[in-house]
Structure formats: structure tokens, C-alpha cells
């Protein structure tokens, strides 16, 4: 929805994978008959290494997999889970698809917006939280469902959300 999703930001410095990431990439490459097929998994390694995927990281991935950088760019901007710029420490992903919508997901989004005074796709000044809406995450029986980074929190309500955000805010 937002045009920022289609622009890969620059990190301003070259990106080189650390040795353990390179070892993982080697293992991944053995699983596929082509180097290109390893693109999505290797981009995941890049995201786990730096937290987001910069233009420089994308170019490094392109170099390793012998792909045109433009191809990597095209793939990066197609999939919504690759972060094209730095995100907060806690990525708040609130599902607003139909079952969660019927269960009041809108209230959760509004709660976060008011509390942090940020809009969707924005990050708090202290760099702790980024707020995004996501489409159905298969938590419909425990609606409204949400994820913080890679963990599900469900079923949610505003009170539970408030407690969760208190806890995450207090963490160093």
C-alpha cells in the first residue's frame, strides 16, 4: 500500500556476510539445482544478519548468487516480509483480515497509533517499535491475532496488548 515498500534504502556502507552466514548460504545452495532458487532463503539470511536488507546487502546477494542486481530488487519488492529499511526492535504486525476485523482488530491498530503517536509503517523515535498491518496470518480461530517479530500473540484484546507493550517498552 505504501510506496516506501517499493524502495530499497541504502545502508551507506558495504555489506559482507560473516563466516557463519556464509556457511549457511553454502548449505542452502546444496538444496537446489540452480543458484537463483536459493534467493529467498539467502535473503532471509541477510535479514537475520542485519535486521533489514539494504541496497548494498541486495547487491552482495546478487554477487554471490550470480544474479543481476535488478532481479534481486524485483524479488525484494514483491514480498512484504523483507524489510527494505531498518525497523524497530519490535515489529508489531496486526492482522486486519476478515476474521480479525470482525473481532475488533481495528481497535488494536488504533491503540498502537495513539500510544506511540506513529502511523502505519512508521517507527517510534526510540527505535523500539514499528507498526504494520498484515493480511491473514492463519490465527482466525484466536482472533484478533498479531505477531511481534516471529512470535504469535493471540487472542488479543486492548488490555492484553497494553500489558504486552508495557513489558516490551520496559525491556532494555
Amino acid at each position, binding site marked *: 500500500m505504501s510506496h516506501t515498500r517499493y524502495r530499497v534504502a541504502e545502508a551507506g556502507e558495504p555489506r559482507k556476510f560473516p563466516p557463519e552466514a556464509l556457511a549457511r548460504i553454502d548449505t542452502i545452495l546444496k538444496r537446489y539445482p*540452480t543458484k537463483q532458487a536459493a534467493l529467498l532463503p539467502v535473503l532471509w539470511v541477510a535479514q537475520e544478519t542485519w535486521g533489514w536488507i539494504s541496497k548494498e546487502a541486495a547487491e552482495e546477494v546478487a554477487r554471490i548468487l550470480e544474479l543481476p542486481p535488478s532481479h534481486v530488487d524485483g524479488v525484494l519488492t514483491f*514480498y512484504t*516480509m523483507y524489510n527494505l529499511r531498518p525497523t524497530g526492535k519490535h515489529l508489531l504486525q496486526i492482522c486486519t483480515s476478515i476474521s480479525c476485523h*470482525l473481532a475488533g482488530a481495528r481497535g488494536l491498530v488504533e491503540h498502537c497509533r495513539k500510544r506511540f503517536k506513529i502511523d502505519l509503517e512508521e517507527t517510534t523515535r526510540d527505535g523500539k517499535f514499528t507498526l504494520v498491518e498484515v493480511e*491473514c496470518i492463519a490465527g*482466525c480461530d484466536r482472533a484478533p491475532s498479531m505477531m511481534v517479530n516471529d512470535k*504469535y500473540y493471540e487472542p488479543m484484546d486492548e488490555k492484553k496488548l497494553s500489558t504486552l507493550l508495557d513489558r516490551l517498552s520496559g525491556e532494555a
Partner: protein
Amino acid sequence: MERVLLKRVGTPNSRSIETYLKDGGYEALRKVVTGGMTPEQLTEEVKKSGLRGRGGAGFPTGVKWGFLPKDSKKPIYLLCNADESEPGTFKDRLLMEEDPHQVIEGVILSAYAIKCKTAYIYIRGEFYDGARILDKAIEEAYAKGFLGKDILGTQTSIDLYVHRGAGAYICGEETGLIESLEGKRGQPRIKPPFPAVHGVFGCPTIVNNVETLACVPHIVNRGAEWFAKIGRNEKNTGPKLYCISGQVNRPGVYEAAMGLQLKDLIFGQDYAQGMKGGRKVKAVIPGGASANMLTAPEIEDCPLDFDGVAAKGSMLGSAAIIVMNEDTCIVDAARNLSKFFSHESCGQCTPCREGTPWLYTVLHRIEEGQGRVEDVDLLERICNQMANGMTICVFADAAIAPPLSSVKKFRDEYLHHVEQKRCMVGPKAALVSSEAAARRGGTREGTVANAPSPSNQPESART
């Protein structure tokens, strides 16, 4: 009906290979590979069982396998479709997280049946836990000799890998999935050629859903006849997982014989136990966001199987039943569903790329009291220009289902919106925003609500 696919879900350590083996796991694999059952015999058995694909299309699984070229010189691939993204669907997540070995055994058996040496489980990116659990289970299966070279001391070798997606609904479409696995944007391919002939890496490929593959060990263990006897008739067989969500008392995944009555699923004591707060049913989506809505009278005598729901003018799809009560504004629901489709369109076909945001825009302005009388017809016209073969895949056909079916079945509610500039039911029914009121008294020429941001959508939360 006894539990089959969900039998081990909820039991202690259901994820571990030890408990799976103790419960008779991998016996089907042993029976097939060491018992001398040929791939052809296994395919025949699956054909006889009447198993139809659980991902949405309901295509007979054994027949699909039969489309593979008989003497292919190229390797054959099996892709397990675990990209479960259809709004309202959450059964595959449960199967993979709670009983991963059942899925893996299904994959190995099916790979054997189609003579595939390398299989991938394409799992959606959001299922971090699912991927971790599968990775661990696959490692266990390798250690026990159920995967890898010379399975159980036979000549059969199969490798299995988990491949994570990264957030794109369209990758659940089988050729979109194939493109994505090849490291490209997940844009569906023109068919033919079908994947069975020209699939991933240009090789013959079979794509099957998680639940479909999880049925295979049971067919081997208990026989095709046993499987075929479960269900409403010989075309709709086997146990089936139903995902029910929305405004019911007990949402969840329920297993029943194919052909469970929709009313029983909503009201039955063993299932969802009726409507929350005793409200009335207004509309039911029987097969995920892509299925036509059913009205309350239409849920009478509606067997939940491929042909039963089709007879009602909708589809079973992924068996995701979403129930809406009488306080749900149908325009708001259609707007929500259209937002999903406009976000998820892959963008390669013009009717879909342009049509889906237009549907959302028009629905949004109707819901916000800025609609015009002609907008209701406009919705239908946009829908008719998007579907029925205008695009490469069926995404556009899915995207028009919510607006088209709701306009058809709840036209009075749409007209109420455009005439009264407010909802007919729900929390916003009594509200007339000053803006809308002014417009009602003044000019009829409403401005198009373009690129609506959620900030100008009023609170509509209900719990």
C-alpha cells in the same frame, strides 16, 4: 466420526518422532517401500480412495499424479503447498505445528508414488514456528533412515527440504509457488503447460496441499475403501478439516466426515456451539475469502463438501467457514475482503491489478457515506470486466466473489448506504457524520475517496 488427521493433536509431545512411532507412525512408509508396493499401485490406491485436493480446487489427487509423463528423463519434483494464506484458513498451521511427522510421512509416500527424489515444503514466511518444527522433524526422519539415501535399506532415495516464502498470498497458486521457489517474483504462469509436464526448473512437478498429503499415510494403512466410505458420496470422500471463525462461540479446526452440514458445524455441540451472544446468522463465507457469501436461508441443508457447496453457488475452497452475525455491516465486510485482494494482486494482469483497487475504492466510499446510487451497478460492472478468463490465474475470479455475491444478495443494504449515507446495521447505523449529512443536504456529487488511509476509518470494533 473418529479423529483421523487430528488424532494426535493435543497429545503430549505430539511433535516428536518417538511418540509418532509409538502411535504407529511410519508404518505406512515401511509397508510401501519394504513391502514391495510399486509407485503405480500406490497411485492407484490414492485414485481409488477418491481423495480430492484440500487446498481449494478439489482436484482428484491420484488423477493429478497420473498426469506426469510416464518415462520422463528429467527429475520429478513434489512441492508441498504450505503457503496457507486464504483468509479464514488455519488448518495446515495446526497440522504442521502439532503433528509434523504425519505431514512428512505423507510427503515421503507421495514422493515415492510419483518417483520423485527431491521434495520441498513451501511454507509461508509468517510460519516461523512451523518451519522450525518441520526442520527438526525432518532431521529426526533423516536420522531414522526415513529420508535420504536408501530409505529403510531399499533402493529408494528421497530428500526433503523446507523452503520459506516471504509474504505473498499469490504464492499459494501452484504456478506462483513454482516461480517463487525458483527465486523469482511469485507471478503465476500461463497454463498449459501444466506443472505436471513443465513445472519447477522446467521439470515435471506435482503441487499438493499439506492436508492432502497428510491423508496419504492413512489411505495406505487402512485402505482406499475405508477412506472412500467416509463422506457423503463417492465423489466427496474422506475425513476433512473445517476451519470455523467469526462470530461463533467456539471457533477452531474441527474434523468430520466430508459433507458435514454447515448448520451442524455452526450450531453443533461438538463444533462451534452456536452464535456468540445468541445473535442471528446474517452471512456465511463457506470457503475462505475467495468464496461467494451465503445468506442465512442458504445455509439450510448445505453439506460442506466440494459438490454440496458448489450446488449452493459457492465453493468449499479451503473449508474456511467465516460466520457473520446480524450486526455485521455487509459493505464493511466486503470492503475488508477487497482490501485484502487489492493488496495481494501480483500485478501482472491489468484487469486484476487495476480492478482490485477500484473495487476497494468504490466499496470504501460507499461504506464511508460518500457513495453514489450508480456505484452499486459500477461494482458489478467492474467485477464482470475482471473475471472469467480475463487473467492468467483465478485470483481475479476470487477477488470478485465478495463484492459480487454481497451486492447480489444484500442489494438493499448497499442501496441503504448510498441513499442514507450510513450503515443499515451495526455500530455506525445510527451515526450520520456531519460531513455526510452536509453532503446529503447539499450536492450529490461526492468526491472519490482516494487512497484511504486507515486513519480516516472510524472505529468499528466489536467484540
